[in-house]
């Protein structure tokens, strides 16, 4: 019996060694350890062994069993690993094959520029306010210190619905509407569509967008205006952006200014983009004219403030180097996909 067990052990271990697959390994397990397996048969024949020999033989059987089991387990681990490796090898893909995209849509460049502006000013504590696009002449002009028959009305090439109602030529009427509500202090921006009767060409559109800004509080100074807009320019065009303020004239601000930023293409050295000057005109601004306060019921002796207006298309065209304004309103997806 001992010899039989030795033979079984040697045979089994040799077969395990020689087995190449998990399936043969399983067959070996069944052949030796299964219900009808050789070792089980040996165990069953224990009754033929002398009683005093039984514990010893039993021990031997168990040892052989343990040995076969551990060998099986060991080999199984090795084979399983090998099989996994082969599977992985078989599953190699060409990672340069095309991606399967979900084809998300794109924002209009105007919107991207607007969201930038909103992010900057909302971060500085400004509220976003909207106003009507078809507007009373009174808000678009009179309350902004542009009385009837003022030449500025011609300059702005207004579209009229009738003598009292116009397509707003600027987002500035929202200033008057906000001030009239009388809730002070005010820090607001107002984006929106405006209209001027310019024929459509590469640099003109009869309909475009502006973002108006207004701050009204006690002790607001021209220095605050400069600081705020310089910060805005840095956030929009980069930390190294310089700004320059030039005197200008708007009926609803005094003093008034235009702001240039250092050319963000050449850094101010002068290039084709900034027409060699190193500067790019970005916005108009100024201290709110006291007469505007008076018409809106705010005491100019107590409150001061500043206002500014930015052309959204101008920012979008500059930032994304779009050379023809008409592209913004054609909505060709090959254009839109670039933003």
């Amino acid at each position: 019996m001992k010899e039989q067990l030795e033979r079984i052990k040697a045979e089994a271990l040799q077969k395990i060694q020689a087995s190449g697959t998990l399936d043969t390994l399983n067959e070996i397990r069944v052949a030796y350890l299964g219900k009808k397996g050789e070792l089980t048969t040996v165990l069953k024949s224990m009754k033929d062994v002398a009683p005093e020999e039984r514990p010893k033989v039993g021990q031997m059987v168990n040892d052989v069993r343990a040995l076969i089991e551990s060998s099986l387990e060991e080999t199984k681990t090795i084979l399983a690993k090998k099989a996994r490796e082969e599977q992985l090898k078989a599953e190699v893909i060409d990672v340069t094959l095309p991606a399967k995209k979900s084809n998300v849509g794109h924002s209009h460049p105007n919107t991207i520029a607007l969201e930038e502006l909103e992010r900057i000013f909302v971060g500085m504590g400004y509220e976003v306010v909207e106003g009507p696009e078809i507007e009373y002449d009174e808000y678009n002009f009179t309350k902004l210190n542009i009385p009837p028959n003022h030449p500025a009305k011609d300059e702005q090439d207004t579209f009229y619905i009738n003598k009292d109602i116009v397509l707003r030529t600027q987002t500035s009427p929202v200033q008057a509407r906000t001030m009239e509500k009388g809730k002070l202090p005010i820090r607001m921006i107002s984006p929106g569509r405006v209209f001027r009767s310019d024929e459509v060409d590469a640099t003109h559109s009869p309909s475009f967008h502006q973002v108006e800004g207004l701050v009204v509080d006690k002790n607001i100074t021209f220095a605050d205006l400069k600081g705020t807009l310089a910060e805005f320019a840095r956030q929009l065009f980069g930390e190294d952006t310089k700004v320059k303020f030039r005197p200008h004239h708007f009926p609803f601000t005094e003093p008034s200014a235009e702001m240039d930023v250092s050319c963000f293409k050449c850094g101010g050295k002068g290039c084709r983009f900034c027409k060699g000057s190193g500067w790019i005109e970005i916005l108009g601004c100024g201290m709110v004219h006291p007469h505007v306060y008076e018409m809106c019921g705010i005491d100019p002796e107590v409150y001061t403030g500043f206002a500014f207006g930015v052309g959204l298309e101008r920012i979008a065209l500059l930032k994304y180097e779009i050379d023809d304004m008409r592209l913004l309103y054609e909505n060709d997806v090959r254009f839109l996909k670039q933003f």
Partner: protein
Amino acid sequence: MNTALSWIKAYVPDLDVTPQEYTDAMTLSGTKVEGYVCLDKNLEKIVTGQITKIERHPNADKLVVCQVDIGTETIQIVTGAPNVEVGQKIPVVLDGGRVAGGHDGGPMPEEGIAIKKGKLRGVESNGMMCSIEELGSSRDMYPDAPESGIYILPEDTPLGVDAVEVLGLRDAVFEYEITSNRVDCYSVIGIAREAAATFDKPFYPPVVTETGNDEDINDYLKVRVEDPELCPRYCARMVKNIKLAPSPQWMQRRLAASGIRPINNLVDITNYVMEEYGQPMHAFDYDLLAGHEIVVKCAKDGDVFQTLDGQDRQLDHTVLMINDGEKEVGIAGIMGGENSKITDDVKNMVFEAACFDGTNIRLSAKKIGLRTDASGKFEKGLDPNNAEEAINRACQLIEELGAGEVVGGMIDIYSKKTTEKRIPFDPAQVNKLLGTDIDEETMLSYFKKLDLGYDPETREVIAPTFRQDLERPCDIAEEVARFYGYDNIPTTLPSGEATMGGLPYKLRIENVAKEIAQFSGFSQSMTYSFESPKVFDKLLLPADSGLRQAVEISNPLGEDFSIMRTTPLNGMLTSLSTNYNRRNKNVRLYEMANIYLPKALPLTELPDERQQFVLGAYGDMDFFVMKGVVEEFFEKVGMKEKLHYDPQAGKSFLHPGRQANVVYHGTVIGYLGEIHPEVADNYKIGEKAYVAVLDMPSLIPFTTFDRKYEGIARFPAVTRDISMVVPKNIMVGQIEDMIQQRGGKILESYSLFDIYEGAQILAGFKSVAYSITFRAKDHTLEEKEVSDVMRKILHGLSGMGIKLRE
């Protein structure tokens, strides 16, 4: 406004700056320089010379060989110019020099033309004699230049000196952008005053001397102003024995540099004074004025008047006219008449320098359709006190140029005197507004430079009448800021109470709409708010459709842009069409579009502006994909109730069997559908196109960002599948309504898993299968609970003529 720097320097002689320095400093002090042209650009090594000998060219009939004395030596130059003669003094460019352009006056090369010595048909030529075009100028600037050939210098020109200097070309012409409030700067004197203040140099305006003989103009002429409101001041002076001649070169060049063509001494003087003082002047032929009288009054309705350009102009009672004793002779401030214009035969003339009401001139010019240099100046509102100075300056020039004999005295009708304004000055207030710390003395020094007065007693700045823009302390603050330098004002951030910034609720919803659209593959489009009334027909809108009631623009850019849109469809379809036409595949676009619905026409109050969220697509798209995008949006904005789709949407522009109104909580909040094939044809879209239009103001009240966690179910669900034979006209929406209605509290969800029409189904019926899921929150459902509810549902369905399939 264009002006030569040399003209400015005539009044600010100490000004010594490069054109770029001038540009930068003037722009920063508020007189914006748009650009400049250096008249000596590309002019190098050009000297004065004299032709001492001319010989025939041995090898060419059209060329001659000249010996030219250039002071230090005599050089040989071959030329083809037809006008050379011995003894002439001429500009000569030497070997290695450069000229601005070709002799034909064509476009000038950026780098000019280099001149080198060489042989012309075998004969050595060591330079070139120059035409005015080669010197970068024109016969407009130098009317004495020959039409073709070398420019001949005056006989007293020294030899061998800088010819560019001699010709007055060491100059630059500046173009200014003057803001509308600075009427005074539409004049050389005004700009010169600013330049003097900017560079802190003394300012010497022209000194106008007394002129005129010992006669009295009142013996020659009577002037009456019937409408002093429209003509606050009228000055007239008289010149006898006119001698027409070209004006002197210095005057011609200044005018030409300003873009004004020199004509003769009389015309040039009026133009010169208009540039110099910003005061338009007019000259009448005295002998053509009936009754030797001038009457300023408005025209009569229906009057027709021929202006001196030969055009007939229609007038009405608002147009101010200059009349003589019998008839109209000029449109005040705009243009004179054919019947009194100065001709070459003029003997005696009347100068007019007046001040007219700016608004009236602007409106008249618009009405007549005639805008002139003069009206452009008048409409800005001129200083009446400038008129007297200007007319006297003109008479001074008449005398200086010997153009005629000025009659003594001036007729001056000045009914309402404009006087200087007094503006309170408080340096502390100025500093408070600017955020600066500028001392009073410095501020006062700026005022002095600008010719502003100051009364220390009352602490008031006295603004002269030419500064009509100065009215209030904030205007004074701007003057301080300009000369202190905007750049020197500190930069700070507003102090004071912190404010909470943020987006209003509407914009937050809008942002969700954009996100969903973009995640679903739609790109954002933007289209114009105005369109053509023809779009109503393109969209097949019935004649009585309310959408045809649109706000009209009274002065549109053309019919195509004449009405404010009442539907966003045209914009979207036009964009889809553009893409289709350009062969872009699978296009998905969205727009946040405002429409404008008038409350009544004609408009008496602002229309209802409604923002609509518009989705449009063709290609890889169908009705249900579009519906899915819409529903994803509603879910994202917290609209959790069941949506209803009403196929009776009645949209003419949509496929009649593939359209629906979107109904939420009983309110129509939008519609979607397939574009009607005829409309698709109208827009030349050759594929099925789909749109969804959601009316934001209608749906926003149903939206919310509030969310509440409801727990994840712990008890098991029970699912029942039912397969039904349904009459074809019943929509699955009705089946769902029934399931929802009868499902009770334990109904969790239902989903359509099969719909079929065809061979195995009776004609007029379709097979529909639903999977219905029940679940209770607090216990495991018992069989009876489920079968009770199922019975109710099936009973309801059978009432609709629906049978369970065997």
